């Protein structure tokens, strides 16, 4: 099998492959970080921190 040298490593890990449970976890982690950052910045302004 030809290996895609751009995305696939020698252990078979393809960094552009995104499916199943791993995809859901990545989506959730991204969402949690986004909500935390937005909440901190918004609440920070309301509290007069900047």
């Amino acid at each position, binding site marked *: 099998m030809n290996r895609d040298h751009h*995305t696939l490593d020698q*252990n*078979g890990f393809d*960094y552009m492959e*995104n499916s199943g449970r791993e995809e859901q976890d*990545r989506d959730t982690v*991204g969402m949690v970080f986004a909500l935390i950052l937005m909440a901190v910045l918004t609440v920070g302004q309301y509290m007069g921190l900047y």
Partner: protein
Amino acid sequence: MTSYSISLAYDTDRRSIWSCLYSFREVLPGLLAMLFIAIFSNNMPGVPNPFTLENLFVYLDNVIGPINGQPFFQIMNSNFVWNPLLLGLLIGNFFGVPDLWKRGLSYIHALMPLGILMLAPHFMIGHAFKLGIVPVLISVGAIFFTATLTLYLSRLFKLDDRQGATLAGALSTGDPHVCAIMMPMTKARGGQVVHSAICVILFGALASMVFPFISHLFNMPEKYAGFAAALGIGNGHQALSAAFGVGYEAGRYAHYFDIGRHVFMPAGFLYVFFIMLVRKLRHPESPNVHATGSIQKVPLYILAFIACWGLTCLHVFKEPTHHQIFNLVIWDFSLAAGALGLSIPFKEITRHGLKGFAVTCLSGMIRLVLLFTVLGLCIKTGLLA
């Protein structure tokens, strides 16, 4: 080991949602690669590095001189997404991507929903209503019409549905960035995303040159020629270049009317996503249905985006919070675009041929002619002053 068995290994080793971040030692080289691509591509907020691709383009813009008052590289859409993508493409294709980087580069899949969600405070619908109700209705109509028309034409041209959806999202909203935003929703491949962005950028550049002639053909007043440029060309400096090609007043009005397109952009890309998702759910076995991939229901981050967009419209995110959040969006998309660029061999982009470009040009030109017709009718009937 196949990617299926890798996925199984992830499920076996998984302890919590944080397992997708792997260990710090594994991901550090990839994260550093993304970081250095980002800070040598753009003038990143908080990084005083003058040796960036962005500054090189600004220098070259000053050498070339403006086109209708607009910098050439801005017309070609040089920005915080496409600069790192270009640098990543060059590095990946000329020097390769070391295996050591790949765990870290996989963070692109967490960065995409993160960036999409943080874009929500950017779209304050209330700002559009200073234009009046008729221009708002025309703006919204143009977005939905273009999205529907592009999806229809891509089906007619037998284009891969992932690319058709990506094109529909980007062309309808008038912003090539949206190709990247569509990627996690339509599950388009990297090559399709870049190919679609090139199609939209090239169409915009060509259309902005033809635009003044069409405007004179329709005898359009400069004010509404500016409106037509904002909706029919989109993409910031391309619209301005097209409108300033008509006249000074048209250029100023393009800037004024652009808000009508801008704040409704999420409606455009969400519309395309929902259409593709419903289509996939109705025809799950069809060999021509690829868009949205394994997505079976609306992802949580899309629902969170819609909720945050609602909060934005209620003016929860005030200034300067909105600007601070947008600075984080710049960081997020710059990092992700670097990883995306590294993943794509040049032949992945070129193998999609010219069908995508034909669909973009046809859809874009139909939109432009219809816009002029509708604006002409509205002026004649007194709906637009």
